[in-house]
């Protein structure tokens, strides 16, 4: 004789066990992504050496605000210090193949006939490979802010010419 029942006594899992499991999960992930993790560490130590890691940290913590500020700055149309700094930072790290970007913009102008040439391969820019390595969405998001500034960068380059 079994009557209908609905109550469930949940399994008590000791805190220690949960900790263990979580730790194991992290270790597994690390081991599975060894190369990517090493890349990441190299990337961060580089940032650290240049003194920019703290800035990124801060950006992670205040991303919403920064995003607003960045946009505000951008909107003032004068290419303010932030853009310049980011530009310097990225250039410094030597990870961006900026020539590809401005070629793209220069070549394909409306006035010209479309030539039968392939587009420069923007995907190969070094930083994107690193991006892949950065699985943490928060960090990724900050890096994206940097990326956004690229547009400003593009303009900078144009101006120089």
């Amino acid at each position: 004789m079994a009557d209908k029942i609905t109550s469930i006594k949940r399994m008590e899992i000791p805190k220690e066990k949960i900790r263990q499991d979580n730790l194991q999960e992290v270790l597994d992930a690390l081991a599975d992504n060894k190369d990517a993790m090493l890349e990441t560490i190299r990337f961060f130590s580089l940032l650290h050496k240049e003194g920019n890691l703290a800035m990124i940290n801060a950006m992670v913590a205040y991303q919403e605000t920064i995003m607003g500020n960045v946009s505000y700055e951008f909107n003032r149309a004068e290419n303010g210090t932030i853009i310049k700094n980011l530009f310097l930072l990225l250039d410094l790290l030597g990870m961006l193949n900026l020539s590809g970007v401005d070629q793209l913009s220069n070549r394909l102008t409306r006035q010209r006939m479309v030539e039968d040439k392939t587009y420069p391969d923007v995907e190969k820019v070094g930083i994107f490979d690193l991006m892949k390595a950065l699985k943490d969405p928060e960090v990724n998001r900050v890096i994206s802010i940097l990326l956004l500034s690229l547009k400003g960068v593009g303009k900078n380059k144009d101006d120089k010419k």
Partner: protein
Amino acid sequence: MGKQIEIMIDGQQYMADEEQTVIQVILEKNLDIPHICYHEGLGAIETCDTCAVSINGEIHRACGTYVREGMNVLTNSSEVKEAQFKAMDTILEHHELYCTVCDNNNGDCEIHNTVRMMGMEHQLKPFEPKPYETDNGFFYRYEPDQCILCGRCVEVCQTVEVNETLSIDWELDQPRVIWDDNVPIDQSSCVSCGQCVTVCPCNALMENTMLGEAGYLTDIKPGILRSMIETTKNVETGFGPLFAVSDSEAKMRQDRIKKTKTVCTYCGVGCSFNVFTKGREILKVEPELESPANGISSCIKGKFGWGHINSEERLTRPLIREGDSFREADWDEALTYVARRFKEIADQNGPDSLGFIASSKATNEESYLLQKFARQVIGTNNIDNCSRYCQAPATKGLFRTVGYGGDAGSMEDIASADLVILVGSNTAESHPVLASKIKRSHKLFGQKLIVADLRKHEMGQRADLYIHPEPGTDLVWLSAVTKYIIDQGWHDQEFLETKVNGFHEYLASLSEFTLEAAEEVTGISKETMIKTAEMIHESKKTCICWAMGVTQHQIGSDTSTAISNLLLITGNYGKPGTGGYPLRGHNNVQGASDFGSMPSYFAGYQKISDQEIAAKFEEAWGTKIPTEKGLDNHKMVEAIHKGSLKAMYVTGEDMGIVDSHISYVTKAFKKLEFFVVQDMFLTDTAQYADVVLPASPSLEKEGTFTNTERRIQRLYQALPPLGESKPDWEIYKALANELGFNWDYSSPADIMEEAASLTPMFAGVRYDRLEGFESLMWPVAEDGRDTPLLYTEEFHFEDGKAKLYPLEYTHHYQTTEEYDFHANNGRILEHFHEGNMTYHTEGIEKKVPNSWIEMSKEAADELRIEEGAKVRLKNKAGETTGRIHISDEVTGKELYLPLNDNGKSAVNYLTNNTVDKDTDTPAYKEVAVKLEVLKEKGDSPLPLFNYRRGHRNPQPGVEVGRKWQREDYAFPGNEVKKNG
């Protein structure tokens, strides 16, 4: 296929088919051409003008022009470019490019890609917002500011889904897409099929689940978003750098957004999709052109109904009954316990004291494994699946007459028939995507439609001829029509002579089915029956589809047989566009039976009583298998009451609510010595269990499903199992091994390999032949050839000939003076069945929070009650209460009770133990009740934002002509000419 002709494109010579348009040829040859409104699944819409090409010196739309011999096409001249740019300018006037912060920028935004491809840098006309608010529906939102008025959404809604909700109001000062006669999405007739969202080339229509989720930068507060959009525009030197950034960001999205092919877990249409996930979140479900059963189509459940996957109510650990509650246990403990009890009971009372129920929601591989478990590990044929509840009678009818228990052809055949007859099927709600195919053929291609149903539902309203039979009398009118056809000499004599046995005997059996007698029994006029016969006679190709309105009767098998007889008499088998189609309910109802979860068959309908076959399985499995037929699920419940069945293992089936006569079934559960239930949720049934094993749903496992067309399709794993839940096949494997068998399948592919090797019907079914959107329709020969259309060569009997099966009409279900209302029941569009999966999706729950009782105006007037009245329905089996919705779909004293609900109105409190005499399928559709009014009126049970309250707005399509007539419109091609 039309004539092959030669044309020139940019100085190169190409072969083309006369029936192709210029754009089709250009795309087929992999040449580049901008095209925003053209979509392969929709054809030419001609709204965007971006596909301008020069044809023999004049600018035309490539999508709207058919190729002709010697045509000279230029896609690259400066004139052409100028016209294309002008067209694009107009589009961008309606669409702001802020790709990096747009949720649609996933590498497949068609505007983004086209602008990029054209190498367009600047736009001459500035973006102009429209004076309309965003419309946020429950499932998707419309952003007028981003809408480029391409009209794809309108085209799909009017001609593919054929729900006829959308149109563009071209005469407005600022044209826009409107729902019905311009009401908000949620107050319209929109059935939330999501197809407009699927085909929208940009972010004007987006799934809510995508918003703020897809991009790295899209989850931002509106104010900041606005300023970022400004930023994007301010610092821009042109679109080039913007695209460099946004393309890179789109690439980054790919890194965290996973796209997995899956097959719908709901109905038997078997739609396949790509599901986009981010972590455990389901961002969107996207049907693809190459989806074999559905193309770009879907319904509300497949597109949006995935709330069950991450529901908090999911079971994540095995449960073991202890006193008056369940205790969560680990797998080891649960499996050991189950194995020990199964063994004890089998040892004590014999293997036949155990019974097994496979799930029609689980995969083919899982059906195969559970029947193997029952037969090999336990040693009993007491194995069945839920097709008993709905589909066994149809299968029986086909076995008797044509030999294979499946649809005669594919849905393409149904779509291409001259005449479609629907019997007892509310197709538009139960098999929505199939219904759309019929509606499309009917609306656009002159297909004729006859609907026989108690309710004049959407299909009935659209039909050329609607037939209302007395409940349960379909056999009679079908036979009378058949007799009339023979009497007129309209039967297909050659077909009958060469391909069919038993004509004379059958003819003799028809003698009692005169039109007069039939009119008397069915209430259908002679004229209507004659009209039906004439329509069949006038059509070269007829398909008949039927569903539970036929099968869930005491004579369900006989009625199914009568349908097949009629098709044989008129020669409607074995040719494209013909055949009998029992519409399977659950996603894998077909597969669950195909793969052996039946008391008298192994996989592929191989008889257990056949010694040779039994020997084959005994050798493969290394055990003795009993040759006696096992118990079907109705008999299992009976056997529990009798005391001979002691233990049951029910998987993925809420028998305690879906079986007829609930109280009889639940009383049986209580009597079981040991009861194991395997499910995602603690269902009603599970609440009676001794052990509940947590199973994983379709998105969390691999396997194959077989749809109503006999089409086998693969699903891939999109997510890891939630918590400690496991795919059913892994649970079966673990249990078998616990009981000392050495099952070493490492994946469902191994299981399929074994099943295929033992089953001639699936000989050539292999995973590598089913990759991605590939599919196979059984029978599949060893070399991989499949069979979309059955019986082209011969019927599935020894001598290759079909059999006419004589029938008589003995039974007549009727309401009585005391029980004077007929309580018809069935599914509704939004919920699947009783709703234990779909209720977990918030939008669905809001649109249809509860069930109702549909009543005719006539009956309501007689009872002096109004919308929202509360009533009690009662008969000898039980009682239920509910609120009235007055509807003109039902007539007289026929009520309709939707199946969805987990509360009191469960119609199965009213069903009793009567079953189809041939298959034991419960006669769910034969319920007479008496009605007691509890309250005369009240709040309507139907929410205000339910599509049933909307008013469709049928249109032929986008009606681009109205756009061309606008003062402010000029074809860019002409402008270029003028300037040049």
